[in-house]
């Protein structure tokens, strides 16, 4: 596995899944259960995608940002403040997200 990103881990746990870069409600129909939700910062148009995500990765954010609080509530890993997640990660890539260390690894 190759580390591809480092951010701030704000909700512990590890999850593996395929990347889905999203920007708003238009992405809702193509988002699949168990995918890794990658975005600049989550917002309420992504609520149903967040509920189906295995983990969340954002470009910006902190411990009390929207994705961080809600990932802790749902018990899924979250990494924020990666700065470049939406640039570096591409749809379909298999990644492992570590919400404790803030690391994101490319799998395979």
């Amino acid at each position, binding site marked *: 596995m190759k580390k591809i990103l480092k951010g701030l881990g704000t909700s512990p746990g590890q999850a593996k899944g395929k990347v889905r870069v999203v920007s708003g409600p238009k992405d*809702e129909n193509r988002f699949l259960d168990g995918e890794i939700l990658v975005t600049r910062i989550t917002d309420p148009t992504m*609520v149903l995608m967040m*509920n189906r995500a295995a983990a969340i990765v954002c470009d910006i*954010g902190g411990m009390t940002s929207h994705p961080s*609080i*809600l990932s802790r509530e749902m018990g899924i890993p979250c990494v924020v403040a990666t700065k470049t997640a939406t640039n570096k990660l591409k749809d379909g890539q298999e990644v492992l997200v570590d919400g404790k260390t803030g690391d994101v690894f490319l799998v395979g």
Partner: protein
Amino acid sequence: MAKPATYSWLDEFLDAAENALGAMDLATLQPTSWRHTQPLNAAEWLEWFDRIVQAQKDKAIPFEKLAATLPPDLCREHLFFTLEDLKVARWPKEKRLEVAGFFHELLKAQMEPGDLFGLHGTTKPKLDVKTIMRKKFHTGTPEAARSLGKLFNAAYNLGAALYLDYYMGNAIENYGPYPLGGNRILVIKEMRHLKPLELWPKRTTSADHLRMYSVYENVRFATDLIACHSFYEGDPINGLKAWRLEADGKAVADLAGVSRIMQSVAENGRDQWIEVTQMPEAELIRKANVIRCFIFKPLCDALGLDWKPSRKLLKAAEGKTLADGWKTWKQPKSEKARKAYWRKVWDPRIDFYPDDK
């Protein structure tokens, strides 16, 4: 470090505010922040709000009777917001302390003593926990924990969409942790005012008020000054031992019921957010003012006052932009100086104003 002899409730409040909000990246607040909207009419807001302070005083209504009209998180947050307004509008020290004291009294009247402002990780209004625990609970499972987490996610998002990111305390609050003995704690999640048709007539949310009770074992739970800022240590998925959900006062029978409510709340949140983010800037500013006043509706009702914003309040913000509001703040670039700047802006005892160096 020992607290200085002169350490007062205001010092504790400022410590809690700094802890919760000092390092917050406002760029993550959407679609804007209070520091963009509130300075546009701080003086007019304070004039509107002072009616409440004076009415309580004139009518000598005890704070205990008013406490339920402004729950803990709203007292804390709106004290914080108002402290900034008091400096923007350059109200005199005596009036600043009077307004701050109003929020403090309202908070004291409803909280367990010891951690009024969340500095020590709790938000604990006085509740009869024994009576609550006599209610019927479902057995906690990982599946239940995830379903309840998704419902909370949905309600949180709807709250942010209804009241904007920074006033969402009107919808979402965590209470606890209440120790139950044997490494168990009770955490209560308030999700209320989810269908405010006076503000947003299009909403069709299936419930207006959700109350979730979670009993955890070997899990630590904390909040800060902002009661929706939740933190867990341990495993809240496997550590959920019992749960209960009430929708508009009625117990929800099973997880299928939880899921149905979640879907309605989530869809309303998504659609509401689209409505908010499509508003022209002037309309967004106006709506932020209406929302801020609406939060005080129960308090206004209890005091016999009109909750709606005055024409003067709305007019003061007309023709101004969010960027105009942000220009109010002259925060220094270095982190240390910035921290000191905000602390002085917030402190009502000090004659330091947003454009001071």
